[in-house]
């Protein structure tokens, strides 16, 4: 008897491998990465797919991707945050002020930046959860409020300038700086160059001397959030809260806490991007993160997130962001005018939404 059922289960698994694959939300994004790769293999200078070329497009992909991961989880949880772009500017300012005006050590500056981000995430969440207003509109308000505050704060901190400088100098020699800036695995890359495995200059130094840390943050976050979403109770609660908040609540899922945590996570992702990019640039200004909220949401949608919530993945957002990076940087390796970037993205978004819609209906047998 038990043997029989086991046999049957095995056969079922095998026969439905394709449908198993079709069921994954990230399928569209992976197909998109393949399509974009093929496109650039034919049109772009092959340098694009050399080690340095790949790191070149992965860097902006990572900067966007960290935001997109937060946006994706929040979307699966049934909410939006349109304020993440402005949040990058605002937390970038907080970070810069903490370092240059307050002269705090990097650790404290980072803690303060995350604290401020988390606080605004909580404010967003409180308003949305208490009033039942769409998060779309509440966070749209914060899109303007935070952008405005960034401008006001910047002028206050710099006595009227539009840029806050001197950040790199203030973290020089800080033990924590290598975690948030520069490149990692430099030793490994030198060793690989020494063995002739990667391209090197004539003096033996590698042409690419390491992996930008934001890429590691991006990959690490993707892995952690994918695990959380698929393999922990919290992940199940996120799907449930976004799928149907009421049903979830009636089943004992702490929907309020889940959504609060997601808003805080999204804001903290913005803070992380702010810290990484501000350290990278050595300065910050009020335009930082401009319109990134839309790009993050688009990447999440390309990654298979449904606008209605309850469905999506972190891996999908990962690949969605890589598509962004590839298109943005890839066009510079082609004869194609950069101005086509936005056309391309709009088109991708449209295709993704149409595709997601069909897949969802197929998978869930929506009647």
């Amino acid at each position, binding site marked *: 008897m038990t043997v029989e059922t086991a046999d049957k289960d095995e056969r079922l698994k095998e026969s439905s491998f394709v449908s198993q694959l079709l069921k994954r939300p990230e399928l569209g994004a992976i197909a998109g990465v393949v399509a974009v790769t093929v496109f650039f293999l034919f049109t772009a200078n092959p340098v694009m797919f050399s080690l340095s070329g790949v790191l070149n497009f992965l860097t902006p992909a990572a900067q966007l991707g960290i935001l997109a991961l937060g946006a994706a989880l929040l979307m699966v949880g049934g909410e939006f945050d349109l304020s993440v772009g402005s949040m990058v500017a605002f937390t970038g300012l907080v970070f810069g002020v903490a370092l240059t005006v307050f002269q705090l050590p990097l650790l404290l500056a980072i803690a303060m930046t995350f604290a401020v981000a988390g606080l605004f995430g909580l404010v967003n969440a409180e308003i949305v959860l208490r009033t039942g207003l769409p998060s779309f509109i509440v966070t749209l308000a914060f899109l303007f409020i935070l952008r405005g505050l960034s401008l006001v704060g910047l002028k206050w901190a710099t006595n009227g300038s539009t840029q806050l400088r001197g950040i790199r100098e203030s973290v020089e020699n800080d033990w924590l700086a290598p975690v948030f800036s520069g490149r990692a695995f430099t030793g490994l890359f030198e060793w690989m160059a020494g063995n002739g495995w990667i391209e090197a200059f004539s003096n033996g130094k590698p042409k690419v001397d390491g992996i930008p840390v934001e890429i590691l943050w991006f990959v690490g976050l993707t892995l952690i959030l994918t695990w959380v979403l698929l393999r922990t109770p919290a992940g199940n609660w996120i799907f449930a809260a976004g799928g*149907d908040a009421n049903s979830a609540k009636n089943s004992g899922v702490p929907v309020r806490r889940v959504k609060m945590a997601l808003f805080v996570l999204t804001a903290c992702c913005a803070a992380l991007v702010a810290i990484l990019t501000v350290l990278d640039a050595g300065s910050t200004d009020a335009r930082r993160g401009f319109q990134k909220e839309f790009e993050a949401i688009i990447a999440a949608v390309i990654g298979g997130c449904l606008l209605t919530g309850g469905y999506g993945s972190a891996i999908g957002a990962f690949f969605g962001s890589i598509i962004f990076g590839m298109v943005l940087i890839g066009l510079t390796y082609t004869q194609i005018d950069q101005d086509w970037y936005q056309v391309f993205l709009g088109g991708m978004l449209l295709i993704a939404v149409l595709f997601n819609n069909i897949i969802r209906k197929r998978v869930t047998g929506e009647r």
Partner: protein
Amino acid sequence: MSDAIVRMENIEKHFGNIVALSGVSFDVRPGECHCLLGDNGAGKSTFIKTMSGVHKPTKGRMIVSGKEVVFDSPREAMDAGIATVYQDLAMIPLMSVTRNFWMGREPTKGWGPFKQLDMKKAEQVTMSEMKRMGINLREADQAVGTLSGGERQTVAISRAVYFGAKVLILDEPTSALGVRQTASVLATIDRVRKDGIAVVFITHNVRHAMAVGDRFTVLNRGKTYGTSTADKITASELQDLMAGGQEMVELEGSLGGTV
């Protein structure tokens, strides 16, 4: 018959100036199916929501296993063994049967920050529980959206039973179903009752109620007309009570007894 496991006394519920319930008394015993009947808007859903901790009664007492209780959340009611299958089933169509089955009570393994879902156990239990209730799933990660209405009801019921429900409240489980699916849900109710679980079955279909009910309580505009046992009342008497007596008699006359 044994003592009541849940007893509700003079329950009132007001929503602002709307009086949804004005003094309803009701009890249910282990191993019986107590039907709660009433027309649309009679207050059935509101009543069972106070029983399951979704609403707090404005007035009245609630006694579970002989002790007076006040539930602050559905969770507390669940912990006391009162499980509800709502009209909307509290299931999420986009999620798999397994994930729905365990929603809010996920099994975990590992420790500390590495605590994670025990998917293997979750899938095994779900598959075998579904089989026990007569549903053969194609795969454990089949989305609930692909199940039929009757199958969804059964998933919801078996979930409640698996998690140790002593009182099972079913809010119109048969209202959207065809003949065969209704029969299978009624059979599930019968099976659950025979396991010694107290079932509260809400419906506005007298025939469905008569098929499995041991006792009947009719709600009308937030009030009860008292409770009757199966051998003391006929289907047409129940029908009359539901429509508020007099009017129904007139209606029935004009329709030639077809209702």
